[in-house]
């Protein structure tokens, strides 16, 4: 066990998996010599050579397309898209090809590509260095979508994704890259894709979140406990598809109240799915409206970023609304 940042957890997973399996390759813009603009691929080119860790031309569609072709031919590519905001040039490859190859070929071919990409606010990146596009991918059958919020999960989930047989969109909350620290097991370490993580138990309200939203949820829950005596159960979903429905429904059946927090624009965001799931499977347990605390239905702003991204204040207000509803 060593204390690591989230990005060190990611780097650790890449190193460990590349050491374990020489079919694992990583590439993307500035990934090789420059070791990634966030340094997620630090040491990889030096340790594994230019064949296994390299920089590419500026073509996201080519990066993902090439990765698919490598995977079809037996490799395990882990391409990086420099910012999730720049994944759209590759959207066609992801939605039309990566997600549908196994299905359309009747299982003859598959492409277990793991796409790593930093997402979300927190670095004053404005419209194009801050987006949270997870809902586009959770609406795309054939993809798994994973978002860690702790250094250990960052390592363990990435390792699982790389060892798995399915394509994974692995989204990294860049705000947490260096701001969270935690113990990370050395060497071989996986966290299964699927199960959610209960951050803290509570009886009054279920608070669902993931990625960079886990931190403000923890703060808000602490304040709600302290000031209002509200017992908040925080569930870090970790895997958005296939989501851990049982944990969600069990929690809501216990608490009768649900608040969901996410950074992306509220409408048709991932939180809408969680709300719909609860409204379909646990409606009788509900004692209050299901509240979504999301980004606003606007592009991501620059100067007003702090107002846009849900923070502890907005989560706290939602918890109080939920709690006081009757």
């Amino acid at each position, binding site marked *: 066990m060593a204390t690591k940042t989230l990005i060190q957890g990611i780097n650790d997973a890449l190193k460990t998996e590349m050491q374990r399996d020489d079919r694992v*390759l990583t590439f993307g813009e500035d990934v090789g010599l420059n070791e990634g603009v966030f340094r997620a691929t630090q040491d990889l080119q030096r340790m594994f050579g230019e*064949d296994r860790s390299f920089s*590419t*031309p500026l*073509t996201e*569609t*080519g990066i*993902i*397309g*090439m*990765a*698919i*072709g*490598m*995977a*079809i*031919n*037996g*490799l395990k*590519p882990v391409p990086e898209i420099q910012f999730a905001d720049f994944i759209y*040039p590759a959207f*066609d*490859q992801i939605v*039309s*090809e990566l997600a*549908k*190859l*196994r*299905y*359309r*070929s*009747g*299982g*003859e*071919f*598959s492409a277990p590509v793991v796409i790593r990409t930093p997402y979300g606010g927190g670095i004053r990146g404005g419209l194009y260095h801050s987006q949270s596009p997870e809902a586009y991918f959770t609406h795309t*059958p*054939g993809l*798994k979508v994973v978002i860690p919020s702790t250094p250990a999960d960052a390592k363990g989930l990435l390792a699982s994704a790389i060892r*798995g*047989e*399915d394509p994974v969109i692995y989204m990294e909350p860049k705000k947490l890259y260096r701001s969270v620290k935690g113990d990370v097991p050395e060497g071989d370490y996986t966290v299964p894709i699927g199960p959610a993580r209960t951050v803290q138990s509570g009886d009054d309200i279920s608070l669902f979140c993931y990625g960079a939203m886990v931190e403000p949820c923890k703060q808000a829950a602490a304040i709600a406990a302290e000031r209002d005596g509200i017992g908040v159960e925080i569930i870090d979903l970790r895997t958005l*598809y*296939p*989501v851990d*429905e049982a944990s969600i429904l069990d929690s809501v059946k216990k608490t009768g109240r649900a608040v969901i927090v996410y950074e992306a624009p509220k409408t048709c965001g991932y939180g809408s799915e969680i709300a719909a799931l609860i409204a379909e499977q646990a409606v009788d347990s509900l004692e209050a409206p299901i509240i979504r605390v999301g980004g606003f239905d606007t592009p991501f702003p620059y100067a007003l970023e702090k107002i846009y991204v849900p923070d502890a204040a907005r989560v706290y207000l939602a918890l109080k609304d939920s709690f006081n509803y009757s």
Partner: protein
Amino acid sequence: MAKPFNTPAHPVKQPTGDASETDRDNNSLPLYKILDADCKASQIPRSLGADDVKRMYEGMILIRAFDERQTKLQRSGRIGFCLTAFGEEAVQVATTHALRDTDWVYPYYRQHGILLYRGVPLETMTNQLFGNAGDLAKGRQMPVHYTHKDTRYVSFSSVIGTHMAHAVGTAMASRYKKSAEITVTYIGDGGTSSNDFHSAMTLAGIYKPPLVIFIVNNHYAISQPVAKQCAAETLHSKGEGYGVPSIRVDGNDFLAVYQVSRDAYDRARAGEGPTLIELVTYRVGPHSSSDDPSRYRGNESDLWRNDALDPIARTRRFLTHAGLWNEAYEQSVWDQATSSINQAVTAAESSKHDPDWQSMFEDVYADMPPALTRQMTQLLAREEGIVRTDSGEFPL
């Protein structure tokens, strides 16, 4: 063993695009040919024997017979859609003849001839056209969207161009694994405008994997003529801007196509990098069964239905000159083709039913996620007993 011709070998040509003075088309653009106007060849690829050229001829006829049959099946409503390669048979047969069985193929929808030429059982193909329970893709894709792992013919989408980037990756993986396999991929003239033509060419130039890219310039993208697709005089000229050697070839000259493919494959296998080959041909039929070409090109295609341009007719004349063709041979080749196709159609149509409902939920992931299992179970349980009419409605 192939019986060699007694003609001098054609010297391996560097695909520079700088064709000699005689290698020009009517607009004096470079166009590599071997067959002359009379369909004689002064020089024949060294590696080809009489058996080879006959095999290619027979392969072209099988494609044509298959396409005629497809068309009839579609017109009579027995299959929902079809798409043919009339006039493009040489492209498929000659590029494939020069390939090894273990090489990877990234086709688009107009290269089913490759499967036929690689000897895939015809029933495998007709099962796909009918989308029945015997289809390798479990009836999931529209007709002509074949997948065939055994011959490394990789499943493709309907989305134009995307597969080209895959081909780059597959070729890079072959090199990474120190395998001698190469990869070939095909793209239409229309497809050269797609995003992934650009990405694949860029990456092929940089990484120089063992890859050969064929542009099948059949003059049309549905209704759009190639002159309104791209303002360059030739499509092979795109190679230079990516640092990829390129050449423009008469795609209806089976010997020229074979020779140039062979050279490019040799270069790829020798680690000398990718080649871009423009094969100039013509889409004689409609784009697909949904298309009516008279709307946009009148009867222009009739010009191509003649012995001077049709690739099968040209090959036949070549064979005749070489003393390898007679009426009886022709008849037997056609008979063989049609009877095997007939059998395959009958088998596909009569003995196979729709895929099971349950199969609709498989292969989305390696293992079915719980929520999807629930969707499936619910459907199977709830709808049991509901009989749907053909229009999808249900009488209760």
